[in-house]
């Protein structure tokens, strides 16, 4: 069964005038049919304002569709009584780590989710231990979150979601504010979770290099999914991506340029190793 499935999903932002009457509306997402299998690593690309974050917020029922439906692990997000179950199944990590950390000590922050769920204390600590271990932050458990680096804070935020035992984690530009090292740390942690724990990952990013190891990539434009495929399929279409205000990894662009200049290379080269192999052997 699909962990995330949507049909004809549409979302309109409505602006109200001073009398509380709707006066303007803006369609942020439309006609989105999504099928994500449990355990997949999915990336979503798209320019600012293309609808990525609006779509993401539907996955844990922060927003409900204006039209159409979305099901998380078989549950329609419109069923209000299931709301907390849905949020527990699909956890979200946002761009700015400082906006989502509330505890004064790392381990307390991670325990906040399960505590809210009414888990017995002993079990909460077990979950905290396990979650901190999964993101490699055990050594920092007694520290104050505001003394951590950006990458470390994001890993704490991810641990906080993990402690709720979700089936799916949605990360909305989790690396936008991080330095190269922080970016590497966070991505490694997320890939590890996907591989070892089988957690479904939805990664929204503007960094093309972060996408190359995904199972599937969706490209959004004007609220719709306009491209869908493996990273290699997507990044083979350099010119089309540029049309959607996107880019390709530098190595892919270099290969594309060399090919245009007459060098015999396949489309959609994704890694340095591939390019070196093709040019030197």
């Amino acid at each position, binding site marked *: 069964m699909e962990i995330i499935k949507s049909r004809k999903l549409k979302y309109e932002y409505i602006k109200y005038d001073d009398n509380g009457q709707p006066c303007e509306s803006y369609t942020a997402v439309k006609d989105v049919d999504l099928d994500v299998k449990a355990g997949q690593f999915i990336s979503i690309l*798209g*320019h*600012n*304002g*293309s609808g990525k974050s609006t779509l993401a917020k539907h996955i844990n029922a922060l927003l409900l569709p204006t039209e159409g439906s979305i099901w998380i692990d078989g549950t329609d997000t419109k069923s209000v009584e299931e709301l907390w179950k849905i949020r527990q199944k699909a956890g979200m990590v946002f*761009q700015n780590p400082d906006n989502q950390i509330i505890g004064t000590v790392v381990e307390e922050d991670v325990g906040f989710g399960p505590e809210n769920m009414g888990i017995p204390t002993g079990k909460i600590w077990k979950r905290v231990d396990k979650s901190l271990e999964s993101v490699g932050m055990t050594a920092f458990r007694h520290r104050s979150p505001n003394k951590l*680096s*950006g*990458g470390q804070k994001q890993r704490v935020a991810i641990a906080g979601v993990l402690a709720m035992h979700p089936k799916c984690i949605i990360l909305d*530009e989790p690396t*936008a*504010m*991080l*330095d*190269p*090292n*922080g*970016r590497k740390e966070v991505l490694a942690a997320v890939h590890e979770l996907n591989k070892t724990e089988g957690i479904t990952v939805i990664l929204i990013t*503007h960094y*093309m*290099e972060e996408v190359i190891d995904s199972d599937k990539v969706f490209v959004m434009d004007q609220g719709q999914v306009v491209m869908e495929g493996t990273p290699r399929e997507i990044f083979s279409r350099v010119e089309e991506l*540029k049309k959607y*205000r*996107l*880019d390709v*990894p*530098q*190595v892919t*662009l*270099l290969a594309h*340029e*060399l090919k245009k*200049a007459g*060098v015999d290379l396949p489309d959609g080269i994704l890694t*340095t*190793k591939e*390019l*070196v192999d093709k*040019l*030197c*052997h």
Partner: protein
Amino acid sequence: MSLKLEHVTYTYNPGTAYEMHALKDISLEIPAGQFVGIIGHTGSGKSTLIQHFNGLMCPTSGVVSYKEENIWQEGYSLKRLRSQVGLVFQYPEHQLFEADVLSDVCFGPKNQGLSNEEAEKKAIEALQQVGLKEKYYKSSPFELSGGQKRRVAIAGVLAMEPEVLILDEPTAGLDPKGRDEILDQIAYLHEQRKITVILVSHSMEDIARYVDRILVMNKGEKAFDGTPKEVFAHYKELEQIGLAAPQITYIMNELQAAGLPCDCSAITVEEAKASILKALERRKND
């Protein structure tokens, strides 16, 4: 006409158990008209450094001077300095506050004492320079997209006509096209108005494409200072301090290790392409 730091040290909480040196004995000079990139991992001292450039922070010891004048000497107008050395903070759109775009951009020049008409003229010029369409001038800044807000915020600093423009991660959170547009615009201003630009960024690819000189900060000290080619040649050392070189640097080094004699100092896609094509041509002829 330059910005100069001599033996600048900045210490947080001096004399207490929490004493921390954010800057240690930094000496550097940025001549007028240079395009400088500053890189360093989170907590390396980049932000502390740039806040010394326009007198938002006062060094614990050492001298900061602008145009040969010590900015902390008695009688020096820091207010004037700050309109000459403009600083665009990270996520500057969080500082937008006016009812419409044009008024927001007018705020700076009005504070400089210009009349409403003059301020508006400066504001419109600045908005044109950042490429914001006229139809948005009367919109609320909060109705704009992330990239547009960022432009409005940058225009707010440009409207004061600074001689030095410092930008702290101006492209964080923008899509690739938005990144290119903002940086191209800044490079254009640098060329047209000959302003000095200091760009703090985590994107090595961006830095490689635009700047004349890179300053690398590590633990409050200057780790490297040189042209992009010089600095990125140390890519292994950069990795040790939590940074990286542009992807191109790695490609070129690996190609060479695999026996294709190409130029390892190439740091942009264009340079790499030219160098690889040349190397392939040579190989064919051998």
